[in-house]
Each structure stands twice: as C-alpha cells, then as structure tokens.
C-alpha cells in the first residue's frame, strides 16, 4: 500500500498519480500536436483534433498547478546519496525545467489560442466553453497577428524542449534504476518496495 504523502524514500500516491497522469497526457498531446500540425486546413478531423489537444493541454495545466502546490506543502524525497555534484545539478536542473515546461507549454498554448484572429471558442472535451485570456482575445485583429505568431513560436519551441527533455528524463530514471541501482524509478512506481537508502 502506497502512502498518500511523500516519504524520505519514495513518492506518495498523490504525487505518483499526478506524475503519471501528466506523463501520459503530455506524451499523448505531443503526438496529437505533431500529427495535426502537418494536416491541411481542409482536413475534416482537424477541428476535433485541435479541440482535443486544447482540452488535454488545459488538463495538464490544471494538474501541473495542483502538482506544484502539492509539492510545496509536501516536500519530495531527496536525491539518492552518492551522486556527484554535477549529476545533482543536472538532476535538479532537468526537474526544474520539466516543471517549468508542464506549466509553460499549456500556458503558451492558451495564449496562442486566445490571440487567434479566428476567435474560435475552446470547448473543454465538449463539456463547457473554456474562456480565453481576455486581454489577448480583446485585442484588435491587427494587434493579434504578431502576438499570435510570438505565442505560436514559443509554444512550438517549448514543446520541442519537452520532446528532447522527456526522453532524457526517462533515460536518467532507467540509468538510476538499472545502472546505479538506487531505486529512483521505484520511488515513483506504485506497489514497489524501496530499499531504504543511507
């Protein structure tokens, strides 16, 4: 049985749930985004795909904010002992970047949608209309043009950062688990036992 809260040696159920949910949604949304970005505007599925992408992204945004909030009140387990200073730095830096990306990617997406000249509403999984960021959607068409371009470029750049960083994150977890054998992966896996590290 996994504890709700984090311990010194492993993540609790809340952090695990948020981590894996966000992981699945981020990877799925990168796939959807890469797929529809090459589709012609006339594609009959484009609208549905974009709405799904927006809904997943906004879900990631909400979950990521919850995750950061949870992290604030419930500190994460420290890095395993025995890591060199450069490795510790890399671990902290990549985690910081991943946290940054799971908030910044959906935020930049929300901003690019809000500054779209077309002004189409975002339907959250067809359930309700998600609002636009009003100071962006209230701009004139002339003002929206460059803003939209800026957020679009930002969104793509940040998404590609995640495409690079996520495999590094996975590789690092595997490296810890199977090379260093310090059970870092198991900390995030439900139902596993973690040897108490010194």
């Amino acid at each position, binding site marked *: 049985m996994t504890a709700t809260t984090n311990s010194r040696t492993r993540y609790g159920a809340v952090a695990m749930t948020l981590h894996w949910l966000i992981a699945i949604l981020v990877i799925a949304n990168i796939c959807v985004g890469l797929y529809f970005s090459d589709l012609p*505007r*006339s594609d*009959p599925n484009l*609208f549905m795909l974009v709405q799904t992408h927006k809904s997943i992204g906004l879900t990631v945004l909400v979950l990521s904010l919850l995750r950061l909030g949870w992290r604030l009140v419930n500190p994460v387990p420290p890095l395993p002992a025995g890591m060199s200073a450069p490795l510790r730095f890399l671990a902290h830096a990549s985690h910081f970047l991943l946290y940054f990306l799971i908030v910044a990617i959906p935020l930049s997406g929300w901003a690019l949608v809000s500054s779209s*000249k*077309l*002004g*189409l*509403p975002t339907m959250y999984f067809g359930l309700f209309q998600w609002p636009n960021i009003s100071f962006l*959607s*209230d701009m*004139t*068409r002339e003002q929206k043009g460059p803003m939209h371009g800026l957020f679009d470029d930002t969104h793509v750049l940040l998404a590609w950062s995640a495409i690079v960083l996520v495999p590094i994150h996975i590789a690092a977890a595997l490296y810890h688990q199977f090379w260093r054998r310090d059970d870092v992966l198991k900390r995030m896996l439900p139902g596993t036992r973690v040897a108490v590290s010194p």
Partner: protein
Amino acid sequence: MKFASVLFGACLLAAPAQAAHWNVDYAHSKLGFTVVWAKEPFTASFKTWKAAIDFDPADLVHARADVTIDIASEASDESDFDSGLQGAEGFAATQFPTAHFVATRFRHIGGNRYSTNGTLTIKGISRPVSLAFTLDINGKTAHMAGTAHVIRTDYGIGRGEWAAPTPVAHDVAVDIDLAATQN
C-alpha cells in the same frame, strides 16, 4: 402637337431593350461583404464577377439584373480567413464555384433611391433577398451603390464549429458599388 407627343410616347414604349442595357466598368466597381468576426468587422471582396444589367428608370417593369459571382475570387487582407471561408464549412468553393443573383422586380422609392427583391443562390440554396440602392445616372454613365443583408446560415455558410453566431455573426452585409456605361 398632340399627335407628336403621342408618337413620342409610342416610340418610348417600343424602345428596344438595348437602350436600357448597361456595361459594367469592373475596374471601378466593387462587390464584397462585411461581417462582424470576433467583435471586429471583417471585409472581403470578390475579384471576379459578371453582371448583366438592363435598367431604365422610366421603365422599371423591364429592368433586370443578373449577377454571377466567382466564389474562389473572394479575397481579403487575411489569407487565413479566405482559405477557411472557401473550404467545405464555408462557401465550399470547389463544389459550388459560383453564386448567382437575379432581380426582376424593381421599385423606385424616391429621388435616387431604389429597391429590388431578387433571388440569391449560394451553395445551391436560393433565398429571396432585398437590395436597397442608390442610382445616379449622368448621361451615359451610371453609379449604383447598395447593400443587402443576408443570413449566412440560410445558405449553409459556416458549418460545425462555425455555425454559432460567435465568433462570426450570422448577419452579413453584402455591398455593391457599381460603375456602368451605356453605348
């Protein structure tokens, strides 16, 4: 004297339709529309259209206008909007390449103001449309300007996510500004 005026009147009645025929000066004419899109007016025009016009203010019974519009010639400052407008959810330009307006019933309202009730066909759907316009004839040249209001959803323009009155309003103002000459 009396005989002369009767003869003159008879000549007027017998005047051939050609006398009322106008040649549109397309270089100085404009046909387009304006619709509120995301709270801002969006204006586009059709670059290619043909109008056959017979119009004599003194003989409205025989007045006739027949306009064929090349949908794919629609253009605005926003190429993004144009491609969407001409797509399947908009005008479906490949399936319905032309729109058509025919008017045969004209009415003089007063001064240079006229109106007509015609039939507008877009995407194969025909609806009655009333067009109010001004007409100024100066010798062999004429200037006509008018606006007709149409409901875009009557013609199936804006399907799926575009069906709602936001971000694109349902009311569309179709504006025509026409210069014509007579032989």
